[in-house]
């Protein structure tokens, strides 16, 4: 038995037997010692021969099966599935985009309707409602109804007969000395009925009142003039009157 063989016993040889021919699995000196042991041990030599036979057979088997691959019908089926998936994905994307567009359209519509509704509810831009405006509900503090409402007179002007119920609004500019008379605002329709309407006392710019034909020349240097507005049920100003023209008994 050589000196090299003495360094490896059969158990160690058996442990590394399957690694001997695998590239990189063993260090060269260890492989050399194993080969030297096999030369001196017939049992281990037989083991090594069997392993080499097994490795060769496995390599032969691997070589024979290396060219195996799935039939072409598998590739065709997969390509068909790929196209089907892509079409389905495209349909889903279109559906999502349509849904997003519909949502956006609905949102815009809702916002538009909301803005329009608010615009309708807001008073006319010409009327500058002062912060200190006193809003009075007709049920709690009804404004003094026009004491003398010469409605249905021969003149073009019509006065508000009653501020709260069934008010008829004049159709033409009022004369400056007509006390407690409401003047119909230009954009309102004739014979507006103000069921459930509200009288609101506000201050408005003199220029705006002058544009309605109200006599505001004798209000001194005040730029803002107190007025009563008749608001319809939807909040739209319908008629106006100057507060200072009224007698004290008619004031709230």
């Amino acid at each position, binding site marked *: 038995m050589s000196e090299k063989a003495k360094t490896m016993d059969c158990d160690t040889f058996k442990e590394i037997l*399957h*690694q001997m021919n695998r590239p990189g699995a063993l260090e060269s000196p260890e492989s050399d010692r194993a080969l030297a042991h096999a030369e001196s041990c017939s049992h281990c030599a*037989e083991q090594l*021969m*069997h*392993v*080499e*036979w*097994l*490795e*060769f*057979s*496995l*390599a*032969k*088997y*691997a070589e*024979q*099966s*290396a060219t*195996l*691959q*799935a*039939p072409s019908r*598998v*590739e065709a*089926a*997969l*390509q068909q*599935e*790929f*196209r089907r*998936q*892509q079409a389905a*994905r495209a349909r889903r994307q279109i559906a999502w985009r349509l849904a997003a567009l519909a949502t956006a359209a609905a949102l815009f519509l809702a916002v538009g309707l909301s803005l329009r509704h608010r615009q309708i509810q807001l008073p006319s831009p010409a009327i500058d409602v002062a912060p200190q405006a006193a809003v009075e509900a007709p049920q709690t503090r009804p404004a003094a109804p026009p004491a003398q409402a010469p409605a249905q007179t021969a003149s073009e002007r019509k006065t508000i007969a009653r501020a709260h119920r069934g008010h008829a609004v004049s159709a033409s500019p009022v004369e400056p000395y007509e006390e407690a008379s409401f003047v119909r605002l230009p954009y309102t329709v004739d014979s507006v009925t103000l069921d459930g309407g509200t009288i609101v006392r506000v201050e408005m710019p003199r220029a705006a009142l002058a544009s309605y034909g109200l006599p505001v020349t004798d209000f001194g240097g005040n730029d803002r003039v107190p007025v009563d507005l008749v608001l319809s049920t939807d909040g739209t100003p319908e008629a106006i009157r100057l507060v200072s023209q009224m007698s004290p008994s008619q004031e709230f």
Partner: protein
Amino acid sequence: MVMKLAMELNDDGLLRRMSAGDEDAFTLLYRRRHPAIYRFALHMSGNPSVAEDVTQEVFMTLIRDPQRFDPARGTLGGYLYGIARNHLRKRWEQDRHSVPLADDSDSLGLVFGKPAVPANGNGNGHGPIPDSHDLLNSLETVGRVRQAIGTLPENYREVVVLCELEEMSYEEAAAALECPVGTIRSRLHRARTLLLEKLRIPAAKTRTAVGP
């Protein structure tokens, strides 16, 4: 077009293009990867029909949800092997009567163009190891080895298929099977020992057959 893609893109690049709807990229990826998956399924199941189904299912999974593959967790090859293993296990669970290779009617033998070698008298496929020089090119030897591989437990069969037949390194096999390299090494050692035991005859007969 496909050739240009093949030269320019690795697996990850092809997968990205495939995810974006590029059919050429998918075709190239399939042609590049499917033979190994098919062979793995074939060696593991011993049945070409099962191997075909498993291969198709593996790539169907990739088509339906390519985003499931995470390059940070491993290679695409390892991912595909993992899907193949899962499908094979499902098949075995669904059809417990179908035992791979050993009890099969050897449909795999038909793949190699030659009927399988019948088992020896002892009924377990064991037989003498003849003189290696006479058997080097013998299909019979290959057939016996193939049958012996088919009788290995699944864990051992996997490492034999990957390390011996697909010639993967321990590291590549470990990545494909999602286990440590040491496990691969020890399983392969045990699998080869089992293979030798299955192919071995009593020592006296071996010496008679092998040696003059």
